[in-house]
């Protein structure tokens, strides 16, 4: 293994933070600071492309591993590594950050330096979450995402930003304490924080008292992740955070932060406590279904565009959780795919909402109407992204929902039936919103004078739109990396399940080829 392969994860993770530190020392010259932030985030993106380029797709275990002892007591290692599950989340993060920089170019005009420092530090922390394989390191990055995000909301948000920032912080902080308790318990019993070591010990049954404690451990981790996702009924922080956050904050919040929760479920809840995960799948699936339907119904009646998108996130993330806890190859693949697709599509929606806010300083849907006339380019971008989010075939939203639903049908018939209604709901609220914003009467004259997208905004939107289409047309490019890792998550339970998983894999292949064939 060459030097680059060994250190690439460290490089990708810390390039943004290093940029942030440099910015701290820089003089307050807003223009240069913006360009510098864009450059740094772009470099991070380019560096992260090394991962899919040199990733062994047939290999299920962790790759690009780096394992150095860091602190001897407690036994903490600097252990980084990734598999097909984390790889695309890393790339998604580095992909969205330059877009966030672009979209904040003019909307942030006060304390510009602080804003971009926070944004870059946040990116580093997010990347760290996805590649850390030491539970302690993971927890460190997990908590480290909180502070910059809360500050982004609180310092640069709108109206009730302080309330939203504090609520966000307290919700996630308090929930993650339960995870910390679980991590400490595991450490106290095994003397290790290492994910791989712990996984092996758990599977070989070498941990004393594990049987009695495993439910509580599972629950501790699960609560931390469920609040982050957010799963019904832990979702109330999300709409507030989204509505008040600045655009870039919303994009990263919806695009990446929420996926920390589902990633955590996939990696830790399923990876460390497979039996408990299966035993508890019933009620978790129900919560996910409630989330899907409830999120969609509440989204439908929102007068505020950003709040609508926020509730649609709750609904979409419900699909992800449903897919994960369906314990089928298709469901898990679909869950992973929705995570990525939702990141691109909802990230795009928030960017578009932000562009509108810059022009009119409101998110109220009733304030708009007939925008297609003065802003045709904007309307077209919006349409593509909305359709991607709705789940139109050939766009990225469809593949994931399709796979999750087929997984849900395999698991429990009625899960699939209820879940499938979510697809209809999402079409209702998104298309209805589109209609109210872009068609109909142009009531106020001011709307006629709204400028259409400029070059910078188009530059920020094109990648998202292209990606939505590419992921919809060629999902296998993504799925073939995800599939082995997902299989690996599913397999370590019993013989029977492995063979089932094998069938599932064939089914997935068949499904995917069908999808592509369309």
């Amino acid at each position: 293994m060459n030097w680059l392969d060994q250190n690439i994860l460290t490089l990708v993770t810390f390039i943004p933070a290093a940029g942030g530190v440099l910015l701290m020392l820089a003089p307050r010259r807003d223009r240069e600071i913006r360009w510098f932030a864009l450059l740094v985030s772009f470099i991070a993106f380019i560096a992260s492309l090394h991962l899919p380029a040199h990733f062994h797709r047939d290999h299920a275990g962790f790759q690009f591993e780096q394992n150095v002892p860091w602190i001897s007591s407690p036994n903490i290692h600097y252990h980084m590594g990734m598999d097909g599950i984390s790889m695309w989340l890393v790339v998604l993060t580095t992909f969205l950050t330059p877009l966030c920089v672009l979209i904040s170019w003019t909307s942030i005009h006060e304390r510009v330096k602080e804003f971009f420092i926070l944004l870059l530090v946040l990116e580093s922390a997010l990347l760290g979450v996805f590649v850390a394989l030491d539970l302690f390191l993971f927890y460190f990055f997990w908590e480290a995402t909180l502070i910059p995000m809360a500050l982004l909301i609180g310092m640069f948000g709108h109206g009730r930003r302080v309330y939203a920032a504090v609520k966000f912080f307290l919700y996630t902080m308090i929930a993650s304490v339960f995870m910390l308790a679980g991590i400490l318990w595991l450490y106290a019993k095994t003397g290790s924080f290492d994910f791989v070591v712990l996984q092996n010990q758990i599977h070989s049954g070498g941990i004393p008292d594990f049987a009695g404690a495993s439910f509580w451990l599972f629950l501790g981790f699960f609560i931390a992740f469920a609040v982050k996702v957010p799963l019904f009924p832990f979702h109330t922080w999300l709409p507030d955070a989204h509505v008040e956050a600045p655009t870039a904050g919303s994009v990263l919040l919806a695009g990446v932060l929420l996926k920390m929760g589902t990633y955590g479920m996939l990696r830790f809840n399923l990876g460390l406590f497979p039996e408990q995960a299966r035993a508890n799948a019933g009620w978790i699936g129900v919560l996910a279904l409630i989330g899907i339907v409830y999120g969609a119904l509440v989204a439908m009646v929102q007068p505020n565009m950003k709040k609508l998108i926020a509730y649609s996130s709750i609904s979409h993330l419900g699909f992800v959780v449903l897919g994960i806890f369906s314990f089928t190859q298709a469901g898990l693949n679909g869950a992973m795919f929705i995570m990525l697709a939702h990141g691109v599509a909802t990230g795009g929606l928030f960017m578009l909402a932000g562009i509108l806010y810059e022009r009119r300083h409101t998110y109220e849907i009733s304030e708009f109407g007939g925008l297609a006339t003065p802003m045709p380019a904007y309307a077209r971008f919006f349409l593509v992204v909305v359709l991607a989010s709705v789940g139109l075939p050939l766009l990225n939203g469809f593949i994931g929902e399709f796979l999750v639903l087929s997984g849900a049908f395999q698991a429990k018939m009625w899960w699939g039936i209820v879940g499938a209604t979510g697809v209809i709901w999402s079409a209702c609220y998104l298309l209805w919103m589109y209609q109210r914003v872009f068609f109909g009467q142009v009531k106020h004259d001011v709307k006629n004078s709204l400028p259409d997208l400029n070059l910078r905004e188009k530059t920020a939107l094109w990648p998202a739109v292209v990606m939505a289409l590419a992921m919809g047309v060629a999902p296998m490019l993504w799925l073939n990396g995800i599939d082995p890792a997902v299989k690996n998550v599913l397999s370590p339970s019993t013989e029977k399940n492995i063979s089932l998983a094998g069938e599932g894999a064939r089914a997935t292949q068949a499904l995917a080829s069908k999808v592509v064939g369309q």
Partner: protein
Amino acid sequence: MTLAFQTMNAIPHGPDYVSILPEIVLSIFGLIIMMLDPVMDERRSQRTLGGVALIGGILAMAATIFQGHYLSHTGVASLAAFWNMVQIDAFSIFFHFVVAAVTILVILASYEYMEVQQIRAGEYYGLLLFGAVGMDLMSSAVELVLIFVALEISSIATYILAGFRRRSAISAESSVKYFLLGSFATSFFLYGVALMFGATGSTSISTIGEALSQFELGHGPMLAYVGVALMFVGLGFKVAAAPFHIWTPDVYEGAPSPVVAFMSTAPKAAVFAVLLRIMFQGHVPGRVWLIWVVAALSMTIGNIAALVQDNVKRLLAYSSIAHAGYLLVAFAVWPSADAKNGIAAAMFYTASYAVMNVGAFAVVGHFASQGERYVTIEDYAGLGKRSPVLAAVFTTFLLSLIGIPAFGGFFAKFYVFSAALQQNLVGLVIIGVINSAIAAYYYLRIIVVMYMREPREEIPVAPIPVGLGFALGLSLAATIYLGVLPNRVLEYASRSVELLR
């Protein structure tokens, strides 16, 4: 005491003086300051005396390091001196180091503060150094009467320091209150020593340990229990553990901020050293449930009361009560084979709490400006905009106090809780963890106000002066160092615990 008197005729020799070297250095510099003060011009004495005190602090730290080298050079684990009243080992050197570090930081932070507050400097720096003498002596004394004397040396210095803002009524109140309640508490300690002497016939901790180790744990003489309990009351007062904490908020509110920085960290470290020595080396019949209750009470009362404070100094006072509680969790691990993890954790905690709390109070002292006018949370509104550096530094200390990873406060809590978990003190850990979550709220409130509220223009923020800059820089570096590379400090602590046996 009998042991000590038997050999009293011998003349102290070289190594004896090495064992109290930092104390000697500090005393000499304290005396120099007291002598220089009357002969110097009042206006210029400020900086000169501060400089002298700083040199004294640095030399005391050098002396501490020398002690460490002396031990490793001679190859002995511990050096008993002055008829077994003082003992130098890795354990006491650790606390000497903490006390010296705090003293240096506080002197640096006081450097400009004294001018702004228009306080005459002379005795101030002298008392700081004398206080440090007492604390150093506390951490190396292994004889209860000497511990009492050292405790008094440090206490009397801090009683006076607390009242140093002479023009302010609350400062005087603070001093008197601290003095009255403090002397009351030390008398408890003394009574405990007397009872212990009655129970075991000695005041030397190691002799007490030998006498009590004949009994099975928890079946010693009743008198010894009562003695320990009384000593615990006296020491609990000094560390502001609930239910002996009533004085803390008033005293911290009234005393000058650098003094609060000093007395909320260094004496606490020293007292915890005493407590560790008495319990651990003295093989004292530990009543774990007593410590359990005190720890749980301190954490809960401290944090809940802090929630409703509007004055930052009072808030930090309640937070220090809570932190005493977290620290006591480590003591509840005793007695067991794993106690050494708990003790090492407690040592680490004192060190990291010292640096972050000194830093926090240094910021508060600077921001409060003349007459300590600006001390409410509302006053901090918009600090993030008006003085980004000060706000960022303060934020770091607050995050460390919350226990966010990458800062010293996190590992401190982490070590303490994991030591407690190894002993299956699950209930206490749960109380502790819930408390940490509650605590996050009030620390965050300050951060939120600093960054997310509109600034109040009428409050001026002076640029950070040099001395304070050094103090903040050093404590910041230490806080981050303990949070990123806690290895060396923790290893040193564990090793010193091994040797303690």
